[in-house]
């Protein structure tokens, strides 16, 4: 109970710094155990929010250090990364509950990709720390890698190989025992609806199929946490929905936690239980999509929420690099 209270307090801390408070939303549909826990902690946190705001010395750092992270899949505290003068990620606190689909939103250049790179151990933080799957990204990067799956923004499956061969490469790199490889690959192919296409060269796949293959690669070793950078960028609506369905299935059948970045509000609304909107390297707001909308007024859409918090601040329409990359991704997807 005590650790629950502490957790609530720290989450409340994040909320306490928001422009306005978020009322608990009890009519949240509960399907799974993990979600139930998540909803409970949300309710708790808004109660605690009141306490924290009234208490005289709410020190988030101290609380974070004391806390166990038993119910958090990802917990970042004061995570920071600077490139020269530019602070791409600026003292970010994140707490992603186990089993949640969590969305990291923001304009191009807001720091989403840099944040994901740090959490997946590709990039060392300048300061601050994070635990992913219970392991510290600085002290135990190898263990973190063993417990996560990652799908980069670009289409990274090898077009010159078949789907099967791509999966075999992942299976070997993740050290799956020889006996299990075939079974797992078979299962992943079926799960992603790619069994028929397994022996075709990936360059003949549609954009949606490539994405599903990449999800299959990322799930092969049963990671606790899946990181997806713009998972449906450039996909047509049908392909997009099929990727969403697979993500929901992954969470349901394998109890995976999913952290994804997107600037597609429809995607955030459809998939995510909780969102963090980043702006100029900082977390501007955290909350459930419905609560965030309700906060802005009855007829507010998530686009309004995005405009409100992601704002025209840094980046605005996105820097040139970001746009060029997005376009080339879209082009390659046809």
């Amino acid at each position, binding site marked *: 109970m005590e650790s629950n209270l502490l957790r609530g307090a720290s989450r409340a801390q994040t909320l306490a710094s928001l422009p306005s408070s978020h009322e608990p939303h009890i009519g949240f549909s509960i399907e799974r155990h993990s979600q139930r826990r998540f909803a409970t902690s949300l309710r708790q946190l808004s109660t605690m929010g009141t306490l924290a705001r009234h208490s005289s010395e709410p020190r988030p750092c101290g609380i974070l250090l004391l806390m166990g992270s038993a119910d958090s899949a990802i917990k970042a505290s004061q995570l920071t990364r600077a490139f020269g003068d530019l602070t791409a990620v600026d003292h970010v606190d994140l707490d992603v509950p186990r089993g949640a689909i969590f969305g990291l939103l923001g304009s191009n250049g807001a720091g989403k990709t840099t944040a994901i790179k740090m959490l997946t151990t590709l990039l060392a933080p300048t300061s601050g720390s994070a635990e992913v799957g219970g392991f510290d990204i600085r002290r135990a990067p190898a263990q973190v890698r063993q417990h996560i799956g990652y799908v980069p923004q670009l*289409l990274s499956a090898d077009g010159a190989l078949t789907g099967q061969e791509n999966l075999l*490469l992942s299976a070997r790199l993740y050290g799956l025992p020889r006996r299990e490889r075939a079974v797992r690959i078979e299962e992943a192919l079926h799960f992603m609806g790619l069994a028929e296409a397994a022996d075709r060269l990936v360059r003949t796949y549609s954009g949606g199929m490539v994405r599903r293959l990449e999800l299959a690669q990322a799930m092969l070793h049963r990671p606790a946490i899946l990181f997806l950078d713009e998972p449906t960028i450039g996909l047509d609506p049908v392909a997009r929905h099929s990727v969403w369905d697979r993500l929901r299935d992954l969470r349901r059948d394998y109890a995976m936690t999913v952290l994804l970045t997107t600037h597609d509000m429809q995607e955030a609304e459809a998939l995510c239980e909780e969102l963090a909107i980043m702006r100029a390297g900082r977390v501007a707001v955290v909350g459930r999509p419905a609560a965030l909308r309700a906060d802005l007024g009855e007829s507010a859409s998530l686009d309004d929420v995005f405009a409100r918090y992601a704002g025209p601040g840094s980046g605005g329409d996105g820097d040139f690099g970001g746009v060029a990359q997005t376009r080339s991704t879209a082009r390659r997807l046809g």
Partner: protein
Amino acid sequence: MRRFLRESGAVARVELIKLIRDPTELLSRAIQPVLWLVVFGQVLAHLHGSEVGGVDYLAFITPGILAQSVLFSAIFYGIAVIWERDLGVVHKLLVSPARRSSLVLGKAVSAGFRGLVQTAVISAIALSMRVAVRHEPAAVLGVLAGVLLGSGLFSTFSLIVACIVKTRERFMGIGQLLTMPLFFASNAIYPTELMPGWLRTIALLNPLTYLVDALRGLMVGGATSVHGYGVDFGVLGVVFLALVAIATRLYPTLAE
């Protein structure tokens, strides 16, 4: 150790599959050595009219051209790595728990496959031009070992350059800048004795010189290794390991 082999093996295997499936690159790479041997070598053989290092000129440059084609194809290996970076493949490899050194070594081994094919092509051309190519098993294995080591060495060097420059445009410029000096400041197409002192010093610091030296003794009947195989393979081995160590440190920066 087993884990190391499995991981490097997985990376190398993928490259091998791709090479077999689409051998166009291999074939186009075979054209240049043909020009060097059939045109350059034959013409200069007449000019010299005499033996170089105990064998006729065509025989002398055959191992030099093999080493050159190993160098030229390995040195542009970094382009493929930058391409993989732009696609996100590097990120995916680096997020896996595979050791960085296994990934680097796997890449080096796969560069070696290309070298083996080039060995076959150049040996065949040389034989058709009546060069006395040695065919005792020990000599052939020695040549193959030299080619694998040389490919690994120069492709790892190329990987390091790629990690530093990070873009294709810059890499192309630097690649051109590196290959010709490495080639000319070596014993590939003329013996180091003909060089002025300063160039000979550079040639002695150039790993390509030791690759050519080893290949010359092992590949051509009547020729000998000037430095001795121990020195040749020793230098190549030490430089290769040093480069792998550096590349292991730098490779992760590609994903940053």
